[in-house]
């Protein structure tokens, strides 16, 4: 496990996760900058993400959707606040309608990503700041479902091989 440290601050509703990655910052930058790479890790195998727009510039926005096992789609948007290659990415992350337009009823998450070069590669620090516990519940409900589905998929795979 390369996640070296996590910090949860329930009072400020923030989560910080620090990972040591075995690749230089320029390559880690690519997994954020290139939508084809990004969609391979953002969503779990059972809820894969598809980025239909990814304007990776300050003020630019991204539109993606995640497809569930039943074909249902959950849309999301990002708006890039900071893009400093290959060091800092900062963006707002929220729910969107089918066309990718931000849902004004839903609160947004603020994400701050920092990449630092180390002797072995890159230290990536991701800080997520939530607007409310209600929003966290929604995100986690989606994520948990994804997690369970992914685990089930893995069990199926093992059974098929047995």
């Amino acid at each position, binding site marked *: *496990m*390369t*996640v070296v440290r*996590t910090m*949860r*601050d*329930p*009072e*400020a*509703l923030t*989560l910080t*996760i620090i*990972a040591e*990655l*075995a*690749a230089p910052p320029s*390559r*880690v930058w*690519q*997994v954020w900058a290139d939508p084809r*790479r990004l969609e*391979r*890790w*953002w969503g*779990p195998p059972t809820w894969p993400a598809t980025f239909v727009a990814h304007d990776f510039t300050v003020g630019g926005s991204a539109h993606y959707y995640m497809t569930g096992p039943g074909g249902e789609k959950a849309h999301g948007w990002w708006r890039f606040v900071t893009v400093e290659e290959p060091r800092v990415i900062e963006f707002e992350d929220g729910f969107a309608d089918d066309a990718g337009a931000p849902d004004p009823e839903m*609160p947004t998450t603020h994400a701050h990503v920092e990449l630092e070069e180390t002797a072995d590669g890159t230290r*990536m620090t*991701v800080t*997520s700041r939530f*607007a*409310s*516990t*209600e929003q*966290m*519940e929604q*995100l*986690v409900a989606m*994520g*948990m479902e*994804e*997690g369970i589905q*992914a685990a089930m998929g893995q069990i199926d795979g093992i059974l098929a091989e047995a």
Partner: protein
Amino acid sequence: MDRVFAALADATRRDIVTRVLHTEASVSELAQKYAMSFAAVQKHVAVLQRAGLVTKERRGRQQLVRGDVDTIRAAARLLEQYEEIWRDRIGRLEQILAEPIEGE
């Protein structure tokens, strides 16, 4: 839950919650810690109370403020679950980084 968010949007209120989560304090004790009036602190406490983040109890002449551990704990549990989502993401991200470089 929107109240929780609004309540925690203020730095002084966050500080009050942190303080009374560990040790209960009276409103007058809190007022001494911040450069503001008793009434101002009392207002902050009222906002936190409505959000369910603190409880207030009258004991003798004092009003004791205590952090509601359950609300904070619920938020902590959610963060823990969200952390799992990120751990999975980083696991997948690493697999991509481990692939041989092609056409770069």
